[in-house]
């Protein structure tokens, strides 16, 4: 290496030193420690005791986990599908001639919930969802819908959490899709029009392929975040009734910090990590087929 290159390398690692240190101490180190911890029983107060595969055996036999994982998968599926589809539909709808004031209002109203704290808005939605006094049931009643036990029935609890999640974050995807639409070169549409393509054909053969990179980003981001859902079920339903709306992260929290089974909590956390990684890699692999880069 030339002295200049050597110096540049030296400087570069100097600039990177803080984040590398942070990465080692607060991400990589703890991730490795979590693997180690999963082979121990540790209740914080007494020293860890080696447990061999016990936590993993318990993981595969835990009668509560199938339902808890199922809830989480249902949440993630609908959360990702709805925030993507609705976000895209909104963006396509908003992508037309519109007075600047309306444009501002549309963008603002859909995006604002993204910035609020999920914990705080969960406190609000808890009352909106009230079976007898909530305004949601009141207005649904106007359309002849029977009162829905949003938070108290095992059938509806997870749906309530999905609805809240979609309401809160659909604006994020909306903004992304609006920007994506904005980036599509005008001349593609003009050329299509000259070739006699209608509205639908332009949408299908220009808009959709051009947006696939954004769709890809939105899905991957939604998957990673969706699997970590915690605040809303924790506040709205505390996981209930029974385990009907308990999510994996809630279970990790309860095992680790309520029952102080840090080893078992680590095992469950690792399973979540593995699933997120596998799904993300599958997404990347699949993206070669359907994502269209210009």
């Amino acid at each position: 290496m030339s002295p200049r290159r050597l110096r540049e390398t030296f400087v570069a690692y100097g600039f990177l030193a803080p984040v590398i240190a942070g990465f080692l101490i607060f991400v990589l180190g703890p991730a490795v420690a979590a693997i180690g911890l999963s082979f121990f029983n540790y209740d914080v107060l007494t020293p860890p005791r080696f447990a061999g595969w016990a936590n993993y055996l318990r993981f595969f036999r835990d009668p509560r986990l199938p339902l808890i994982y199922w809830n989480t998968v249902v949440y993630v599926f609908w959360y990702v599908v709805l925030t993507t589809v609705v976000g895209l539909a909104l963006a396509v709808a908003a992508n037309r001639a519109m007075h600047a004031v309306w444009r501002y209002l549309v963008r603002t109203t859909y995006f604002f919930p993204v910035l609020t704290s999920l914990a705080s808005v969960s406190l609000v939605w808890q009352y909106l969802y009230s079976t007898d006094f909530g305004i949601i049931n009141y207005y649904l009643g106007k359309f002849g819908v029977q009162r829905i036990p949003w938070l108290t029935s095992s059938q509806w609890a997870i749906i309530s959490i999905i609805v809240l999640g979609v309401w809160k974050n659909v604006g994020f995807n909306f903004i992304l899709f609006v920007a994506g639409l904005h980036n599509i070169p005008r001349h593609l549409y003009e050329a299509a029009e000259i070739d006699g393509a209608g509205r639908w054909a332009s949408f299908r053969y220009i808009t959709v392929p051009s947006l696939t990179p954004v769709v890809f980003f939105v899905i991957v981001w939604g998957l990673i975040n969706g699997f970590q859902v915690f605040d809303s079920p924790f506040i709205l339903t505390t996981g209930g009734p029974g385990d009907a709306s308990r999510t994996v992260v809630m279970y990790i929290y309860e095992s680790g910090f309520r029952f102080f089974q840090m080893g078992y909590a680590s095992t469950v956390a690792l399973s979540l990590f593995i699933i997120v990684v596998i799904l993300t890699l599958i997404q990347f692999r699949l993206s070669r087929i359907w994502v269209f880069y210009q």
Partner: protein
Amino acid sequence: MPATSGPILNGRFRAKLFDWSVTALLLLGGILMMMPFVWMFSTSWRQAKDSFSLPPQWLPTAWRIENYQEVLNGIPFVEFVLNSLKVSTLITLGQLVTCSMAAYAFARLRFPGRDLLFLIFLSQLMVPQQVTIIPVFILIRVLGLLDTHWALIIPALFSAFGTFLLRQFFLTIPYELEDAARVDGAGYVRTFLQIILPLAGPGLSTLAIFVFNFYWNEFFRPLLFISTWEKMTLPLGLTVMRGYLGVGNVAAIMAGVSMGILPVLVVFLVAQRYLIEGITLTGIKG
């Protein structure tokens, strides 16, 4: 009017009408999106006994400042705000420093292992916080930092997301200025401080708003690390308040949540442009 122009006018009118209807529907949806906030705000200005009155009232029914006083006097609300302010500000400043340094190295310097290191860095985004949180908790406990704000601040001073975002911004800065500075004999540090950082103003603002907002809203880590009432940050404090004031006192709880959301609204109205630019840059050009 000549008969032949009829269909053309009609067609144009129909297209216009379609645009108007879609706009109207979007605005209607926007109103629906804001309903929870409207309900929250109007309920905070009500007698507690009217909180659940049906049909719903969409305007405040009694200008009861007492609901707000109850929050301010009954719980350490001001402390919550100050705690959140302290934690979010320090984390934001820290990330601006660490992430901009790392982003400069990734975007502007050439060194062996750069691309691999960047990939490893990005892969952090896949690691759910819950995987690392237990060892981090143990570490914080060993360091004697449990139930202090440092437990929240120190592990958050670095971020892959922030590094990525700023790298994207730095990549858009033209090289010419940097080369000119290099010719004038400026070293890497001076180039970074005097050329890159001043030009990356919008990027830094965007990251600052993102980070501040994220930690202002954070709930999970404060729930684990903070146990003393007076040290809690806002979302945790408000949640605990619900139990303290009694679930029945909706008016006071909504007053608390309203006061918590107000700063977010202000930041949003002031900084909307940066936020949208930042989201666009991470999602589109990533």
